[in-house]
């Protein structure tokens, strides 16, 4: 990293950190620059890796599919007009429809069947039993159409406890992860920039 680069990065870092004190012009400036850069970055990457190879090049090669792709692009872009804007509902429908269709087998498989397979273990030990009870109890917490009474209520309560253990564990691990990031930025400020480390 060049010296100019380090200074630039350091100033930006401090400007963002200043938000911790309160919202201020330095933060707003850094925020707007970050957002502007990131929009530019995404547009560049999108144009260069998707629109050029998948739309522009096929058209230049005379591939009719390229024209179909171009039509979708244009339909999407009708949004800028108030009169033709409704046409953009067509590409939206493709996304929603195809997305729904694609997700059904994927969801059932990855989120339901494979998880069930993992619960039903080939050997049964304490952990397998705790695991199975946890899954059943959590499911009963998500049971909506029955008043929580009797044994059902007990199961749902147990479910919330399992949920709380999960949330607690995630929280602990995530605190760990996030602190690592702060450690990295602090090392940059104290070490790379100020040379104190």
């Amino acid at each position, binding site marked *: 990293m060049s010296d100019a680069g380090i200074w630039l990065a350091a100033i930006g870092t401090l400007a*963002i950190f200043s938000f911790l004190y309160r919202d201020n012009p330095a933060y707003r400036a850094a925020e*707007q*620059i970050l957002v502007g850069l990131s929009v530019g970055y995404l547009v560049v990457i999108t144009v260069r890796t998707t629109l050029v190879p998948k739309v522009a090049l096929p058209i230049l090669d005379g591939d009719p599919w390229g024209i179909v792709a171009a039509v979708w692009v244009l339909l999407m872009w009708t949004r800028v007009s108030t009169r033709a804007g409704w046409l953009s509902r067509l590409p939206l429908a493709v996304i929603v429809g195809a997305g*729904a269709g694609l997700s059904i087998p994927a969801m059932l498989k990855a989120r339901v069947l494979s998880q069930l397979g993992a619960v039903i273990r080939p050997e049964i030990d304490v952990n397998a039993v705790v695991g199975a009870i*946890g899954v059943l109890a959590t499911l009963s917490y*998500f049971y909506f159409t029955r008043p929580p009474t009797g044994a059902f209520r007990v199961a749902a309560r147990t479910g919330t406890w399992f949920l709380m253990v999960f949330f607690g564990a995630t929280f602990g691990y995530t605190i760990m992860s*996030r602190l690592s990031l702060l450690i990295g930025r602090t090392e940059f400020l104290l070490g790379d920039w100020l040379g104190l480390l």
Partner: protein
Amino acid sequence: MVGVFGFAMLIQYFVPHPLGRVLYGRVLEWMQVIFAAGLVLGGATYAMSHLRTVSGRREGWIYSLLALAALTLMLAAGLIGGIDRGTLFLWLFNNLQAPLQQTVFSLLAFFVASAAYRGFRARNIDAALLLIVALVVMLGRIPIGEMTGPFLPDLARWLVDVPAVAAKRGILIGIGLGSVAVALRVMLGIERAWLGGRR
């Protein structure tokens, strides 16, 4: 339209015939292209809204000018200069965009602490359980926790591996069923609020 594409994509999963695969490939490509077009459109909307602010000299127009400058710089660098190593595009990315992003990400460390301080109250059994598990995991994964013996690290590992995984599976199964139901209703046109129709 939604239904046609939906069922076509669903049935395709069970059809190994090459015709299905060709169709599948095309639709995936269309989805990519539509998303890409949306991104460019988003960029344009973004530029337009800032342009309006600047030209109207509305409050904060100077920031909008900065945003526009950053956008233009990145676009020009990337579209004209290319995206390889040693280009202005990557220099901007490495020295400005990436560190800024990392810094915003690291703000989380502060927020996580503040959230823990205010949110972690043992108000009832549920909250106490959440609190204790989080503390055990935090202690179990640092050297100081390990110095107290193997109990804490082992407990932390067991909590993560057994009950937490069970709860996660329960949540996933519920989400899986819920997603399928929503997807099916959308495909059948029963649920249309995503396009503003009142069902």
